[in-house]
C-alpha cells in the first residue's frame, strides 16, 4: 500500500471538491443552515398552530333538540362551544370547514333523561382534521359531563352513595428515567437523520469523482499514472468519507446549537417537560451513536462510489443514486417504528441493527453483547462494500464501459 499516493489523491480530491459550489452546498450549507431552520421553523409553526387551534372556540351546529330546551340552553352556555344556526346539509358544512363539528340530538332528549330511557347522541366530525377533532372532543366532553351528572342525580334520588361507581382508584407510575423517555422520542429519529445526512454529504462528491471523471475524460489521465488503482480508489474513497462525516458533524453541532437557542426562545410557549426531555439526552449515548455510525458512513460512501463507478455519466449515476437512497432509508424508518425491538436476527440486518442499537444507547441502555455484535457486523458490511468498490475500480469493463 502506497500511502503517499493515497494522500496525494485525497488531497487533490478534497481541494477540488471544496472549490465546487455544489459540494459546499450539500456538505456545509444544507446541514448547518437548512436543517436547523427547517426543524426550528417547523417546530415553531407546529406549536403555534396547535396553540391557536386549542384556543379557538369551534363553531358547532345542533341538529334537533327543539323539544329539549334544558340541554339546548346548557350547550349554548358552554364556554368551549360556539353554536351556529342549524342547516340541513350539515355534513357538507363540516367538509367545507364552515362548522367544525355537529351534534345530533334524538327526539325528546330531555324527557328521555328524566324518564331514565335509553337515548343516543351522535357527534359528527372530520377525522384527521385537527380543528374538527378538537371541536368533537369538546362536544364529547360536554356530553360526558352531562352523563356523569345524570348518573349522580339518579343515584342520589335512590339514596345510593356516589362512591359506588368507584370501588377503587388507579394510579400510573413512570419508572423510565427522563433519558429513556428522550431516547424513545429522539433515539429513533437520530440514526435516521444521521443516515440521511451521511448519504446527502457523500452523494455529490462520490458521483463526481467517479462518473463525473469518466464523463470529463480525466479518469483515463489518472489511470495512466504509475499509481496502483487501489491507491487511486482509496484516495477518492477517503475524500467521500470525509465529506460524509463532515456533513454529519456539522449538522449535529448546528442542531445542538439550535436546541439551545430554541430552549431560550420557546421557554414560555412549550411545556417545560418537553424541554427537560431534550436537555437530558445522554452525551455518552451521543458519542456511542456517532461511533456506531462510522462503519455505516463507510458502507454508504462505498456504495455511492460503486454507483458512480458503474455509471457512464454523472446524470446516469444520479438516476441510480435516487432510488438507492430510498432503499437505504427504509431500514432506518423501520427501526423508528414503535414496537420494533432489538433481537438476535435483527442484530445482523444492516442499517436496521445500528438504528435500533442507537435508539437504546441514546436512552442510556447499553446491551454490550448486542453492541459488539452489531459494531462487528457493521464493520464487516463496510469492509465488504469497500472491497467491492476497490474490485470494481480494477475492472476495465467498469472503467471503460461504453
Amino acid at each position, binding site marked *: 500500500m502506497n500511502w503517499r*499516493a493515497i494522500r*496525494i*489523491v485525497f488531497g*487533490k480530491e478534497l*481541494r*477540488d471538491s471544496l*472549490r*465546487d459550489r455544489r459540494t459546499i452546498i450539500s456538505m456545509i450549507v444544507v446541514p448547518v443552515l437548512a436543517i436547523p431552520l427547517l426543524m426550528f421553523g417547523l417546530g415553531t409553526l407546529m406549536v403555534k398552530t396547535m396553540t391557536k387551534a386549542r384556543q379557538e372556540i369551534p363553531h358547532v351546529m345542533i341538529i334537533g333538540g327543539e323539544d329539549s330546551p334544558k340541554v339546548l340552553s346548557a350547550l349554548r352556555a358552554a364556554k368551549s362551544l360556539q353554536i351556529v344556526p342549524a342547516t340541513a346539509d350539515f355534513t357538507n358544512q363540516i367538509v367545507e370547514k364552515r362548522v367544525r363539528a355537529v351534534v345530533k340530538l334524538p327526539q325528546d332528549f330531555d324527557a328521555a333523561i328524566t324518564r331514565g330511557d335509553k337515548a343516543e347522541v351522535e357527534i359528527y366530525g372530520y377525522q384527521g382534521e385537527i380543528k374538527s377533532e378538537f371541536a368533537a372532543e369538546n362536544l364529547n366532553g360536554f356530553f360526558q359531563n352531562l352523563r356523569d351528572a345524570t348518573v349522580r342525580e339518579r343515584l342520589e334520588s335512590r339514596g345510593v352513595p356516589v362512591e359506588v361507581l368507584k370501588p377503587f382508584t388507579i394510579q400510573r407510575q413512570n419508572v423510565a428515567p427522563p433519558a429513556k423517555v428522550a431516547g424513545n422520542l429522539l433515539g429513533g429519529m437520530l440514526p435516521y437523520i444521521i443516515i440521511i445526512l451521511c448519504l446527502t454529504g457523500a452523494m455529490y462528491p462520490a458521483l463526481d469523482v467517479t462518473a463525473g471523471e469518466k464523463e*470529463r*475524460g*480525466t479518469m*483515463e*489521465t*489518472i*489511470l*495512466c*499514472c*504509475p*499509481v*496502483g488503482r487501489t491507491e487511486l480508489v482509496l484516495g477518492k474513497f477517503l475524500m467521500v468519507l470525509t465529506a460524509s462525516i463532515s456533513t454529519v458533524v456539522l449538522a449535529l453541532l448546528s442542531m445542538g446549537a439550535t436546541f439551545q437557542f430554541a430552549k431560550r426562545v420557546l421557554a414560555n410557549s412549550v411545556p417545560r417537560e418537553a424541554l427537560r426531555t431534550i436537555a437530558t439526552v445522554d452525551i455518552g449515548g451521543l458519542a456511542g451513536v456517532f461511533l456506531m455510525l462510522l462503519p455505516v458512513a463507510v458502507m454508504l460512501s462505498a456504495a455511492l462510489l460503486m454507483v458512480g463507478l458503474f455509471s457512464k455519466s454523472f446524470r446516469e449515476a444520479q438516476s441510480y443514486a435516487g432510488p438507492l437512497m430510498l432503499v437505504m432509508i427504509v431500514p432506518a424508518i423501520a427501526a423508528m417504528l414503535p414496537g420494533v425491538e432489538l433481537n438476535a436476527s435483527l442484530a445482523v440486518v444492516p442499517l436496521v441493527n445500528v438504528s435500533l442499537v442507537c435508539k437504546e444507547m441514546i436512552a442510556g441502555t447499553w446491551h454490550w453483547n448486542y453492541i459488539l455484535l452489531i459494531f462487528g457486523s457493521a464493520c464487516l458490511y463496510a469492509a465488504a462494500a469497500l472491497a467491492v468498490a476497490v474490485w470494481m475500480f480494477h475492472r*476495465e*469493463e467498469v*472503467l*471503460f464501459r461504453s
Partner: protein
Amino acid sequence: MRVHGEVCPILVIETHQLTKTFRDRKRGEVRAVDGISFRCEPGRIYGLLGANGAGKTTTLRLLATLLKPSSGTVRVAGCDAVREPEKIRARIGFLSTGTALYGRLTARETVEYFGRLHGVDEDLLQGRLREVFATLGMGEFEDRRCDKLSSGMKQKVSIARTLVHDPPVMIFDEPTLGLDVMTARTIVQFIRDCRQQGKTVIVSTHVMSEAEKLCDRIGIIDRGRLLVEGTLAELRTQYGATELEDIFVRAVEGRP
C-alpha cells in the same frame, strides 16, 4: 538515441500478436484488436492510421497498460505490460483526444498533481514545472483555473501534464481531433519536437494529411487487424500510388 548504431532497446515499443477481445451483449465476442505486431523506435514517429472504430484507441490503451491484453504481448521500454504495468506508466506520456482537465484546479496545480502521481520528487518538481511552463509559454496563465482558460491554453496544460515526468515514450490518441487550426499546429509541432528530442512517439489518427506530414512509419489498421505497415515510400511502392488516401483505400479493400 542511437548507441553505436544500435537502437537503444530500453525505449522501444514492441507488440507481438497483440489481441484484445470484449464481450458485447448484442454482438457476442468482439475482437477490437486482432493479432497486431509492430515496433516503434526512439526518434521516430509511428502512425496508426484507421477509420473510427478500427481499434486505434484500444491498441493505444493496451500500450499504456490501461487495458490488459487478452493474448499476445506488449513491451514498452523493456518492461512487460502485464507484469510491470506501473514501470511502463512511469515511462510514458499519454495525450488523448480532448483536453480532459480538472476545471477547478489551476494550471499549476494540475501539472503538480500529475508530477506527484508520477513520483517526481518534491525538490525536483518545482524546477521541472518552471522548465515545462517556460517551454510551453504558460507563464501568464499558470495560476488561473483550467475552466477559465481558452482551448489553446487548455491544450498546453494538457501537454504540460504529460511532460512533467519527462517521459521517453509519448502516446498520442487522435491529438488534433476537434481542435482549431492554430491549436492543431501547435500540437503537431510539439509531436515533432518530441521526435527531435529522441523520444519514441506513437500517434493514432484518421486524418491522411496529418499522417503523411508527420509519421516516419505508418501502420494501416482496420477492424482490429494491422493490414500493412512501412515508411510512406515503402507503402507507395507496394501499392503503386502516391496519395496516402489511395493507399489506405486499397489496403482496406484488400487490393494489392
